[in-house]
């Protein structure tokens, strides 16, 4: 067998798809977090500057305008660790106090790159013109925010890698276990293709989908094995059952040939031979017919068949023949049921059953053709009071060529009931052989849909 390339297995593809989905989830989560954190930080810094400005203003109101540089210096000291930026300029642009170099005043909130303590930093600022004409710039270093976003990016990066590893690993483990079970099924089927029909897929009794699949495969194999066995059986039977009459025919011809008999005797021998060949041909015809019905091909479209009418007409047709055998043929049929069926096959099925009953029942008995409506179903039955069929033989008589020991000497090819069984199956009907105490009752139950 071709080694399964792990990269081409469906479980690998599934793993890949899951990993991609995980990564997508992580990325979305990251994006959302990033945006919200930034938003929050921005709002926080802007508010911080506004609060700071209000604080300074209220402190100036309490202490007086001339105390402003001191207030700013104390704020500067107080907020040194959060890297706050202050710059106070007089109206002429000269620096009064602050921790950055003097610059051209700018107003309103904005981002600026400023040199703080000798380092260039990204600072969120707001510039104000004070009541006495001084200029005040308050800034908030954003590096904290940058550090935070960097931390978020890093943690999500690590998370992403871990997720990827877990997804691939998990997928591989699950995939392997799935592959193993599929492989066990496919190795069984290969063994069967190789000729060993007795192989079966092992079940795990877990009741999962794989067990259901394996059970289905096993059931299919049982059916195939059954068919193979019956096919072998049938071809054996055909070979055997046709050999006997052919041998007899050969003996008859050889006998006539060797004895150099008179024209009259030769004529007689030939006549007998033709009759024998006819019976062999008849057997072939019956076999072909059964095969054709079982194959179900070229089926005539089903037509509505009035059962009481059909059964009555068959009983009428066979009554004289039954009388000639010293039997009575009667009908006991509930009227009004129509089946959708192949009328010709249905007729042949009933005729075969009546035929059997007449041939196997002794004189003085009654044969009853019954038609019963059972709920939505229709049961058709032929009951006789003949010798019947022993329970253990009932299954076997449905097989082609099978004949009871008692009837081996009577005329017939042993295909009648096989044909009935094939026709019943074609119509989805159930055939059953029951004890009529005494005698045999063959019943065919047609389901409601038929």
């Amino acid at each position, binding site marked *: 067998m071709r080694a399964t390339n792990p990269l081409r297995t469906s479980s690998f593809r599934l793993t890949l798809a899951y990993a991609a989905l995980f990564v997508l989830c992580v990325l979305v989560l990251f994006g959302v977090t990033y945006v919200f954190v930034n938003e929050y930080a921005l709002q926080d810094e802007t508010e911080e500057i506004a609060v700071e400005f209000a604080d300074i203003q209220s402190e100036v109101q309490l202490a007086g305008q001339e105390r402003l540089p001191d207030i700013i210096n104390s704020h500067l000291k107080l907020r040194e660790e959060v890297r706050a930026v202050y710059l106070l300029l007089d109206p002429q642009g000269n620096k009064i106090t602050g921790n950055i170099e003097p610059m051209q005043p700018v107003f309103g909130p904005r981002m600026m790159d400023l040199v703080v303590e000798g380092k260039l930093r990204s600072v969120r600022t707001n510039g104000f013109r004070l009541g006495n004409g001084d200029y005040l710039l308050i800034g908030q270093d954003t590096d904290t925010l940058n550090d935070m976003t960097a931390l978020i990016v890093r943690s999500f990066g690590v998370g992403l890698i871990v997720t990827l590893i877990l997804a691939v690993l998990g997928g591989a483990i699950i995939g392997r276990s799935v592959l193993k079970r599929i492989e066990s099924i496919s190795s069984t089927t290969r063994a069967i293709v190789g000729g060993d029909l007795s192989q079966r897929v092992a079940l795990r009794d877990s009741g999962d989908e794989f067990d259901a699949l394996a059970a289905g495969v096993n059931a299919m194999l049982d059916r195939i094995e059954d068919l193979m066995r019956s096919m072998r059986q049938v071809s054996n039977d055909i070979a055997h059952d046709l050999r006997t009459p052919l041998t007899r025919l050969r003996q008859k011809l050889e006998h006539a040939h060797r004895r150099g008999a008179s024209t009259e005797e030769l004529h007689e021998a030939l006549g007998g031979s033709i009759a024998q060949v006819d019976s062999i041909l008849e057997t072939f*015809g019956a076999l072909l017919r059964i095969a054709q*019905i079982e194959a179900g091909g070229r089926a005539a479209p089903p037509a509505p068949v009035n059962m009481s009418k059909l059964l009555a007409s068959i009983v009428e047709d066979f009554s*004289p*023949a039954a009388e000639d055998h010293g039997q009575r043929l009667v009908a006991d049929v509930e009227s009004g049921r129509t089946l959708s069926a192949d009328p010709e096959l249905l*007729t042949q099925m009933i005729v075969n059953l009546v035929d059997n009953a*007449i041939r196997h029942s002794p004189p003085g008995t009654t044969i009853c053709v019954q038609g019963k409506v059972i709920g939505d179903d229709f049961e058709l039955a032929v009951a006789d009071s003949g010798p019947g069929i022993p329970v253990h033989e009932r299954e076997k008589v449905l097989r082609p060529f099978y004949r009871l020991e008692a009837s081996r000497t009577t005329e017939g090819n042993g295909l009648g009931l096989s044909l009935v069984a094939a026709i019943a199956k074609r119509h989805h009907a159930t055939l059953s052989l029951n004890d009529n105490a005494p005698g045999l009752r063959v019943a065919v139950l047609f389901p409601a849909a038929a």
Partner: protein
Amino acid sequence: MRILVVEDDAETAAYLIGGLEEEGYAVTHAGDGRDGLFLATTENFDLLIIDRMLPELDGLTLVKTLRASGNETSVLFLTTMSGIDDRVTGLNAGGDDYLVKPFAFSELLARVKALARRPRGTHVETHFKVGDLELDLLTRVVKRSGHEIALQPREFRLLEYLMRHAGEVVTRTMLLDNVWNYHFDPRTNVVESHLSRLRTKVDKGYSSELIHTVRGAGYCLRARD
């Protein structure tokens, strides 16, 4: 009477032609469907015996083509024994009768004779008379020498078929086909038991028998001549 045999199997064809010529028929042979169609349309035959399976042009198409061109010559189809609905398609295509291979020559001959006499599209007969036996389809009354005979429906149909083919040999299979509409052979003697009853009703008590058994072939309804 001229018969065209369209059959590709040489052995079967020789068997048919030999047997039919022995019976006094003039027989022409075609080995495939196309030759068969050509001969059937260019010459005048009383009966065509056509195999269903033919090279060049199958039997069914041959007959369909023939019928479409207005040719109404009687057709007897030969079919293989496996076909369940071969009979139906054959008759639908315009065949007048069919025979399943392998067949006994007597069976073929009986059917050929029945077809040869079949009136094609002429008036419908409702009254039959053979010797002193009369059958009326409209009143459904059967009389012999003026005495009414009571028959069961199936016996009536059986007698009707025999009278339609009076003087001809009618086989068991023909009776099963046409009187019972059984296209298979039941093992029970359905035909025999009905015929013996019919015979009792029709012939018993009369000096001459009308229903005759032809050994190895079938039955024949015939007045003594």
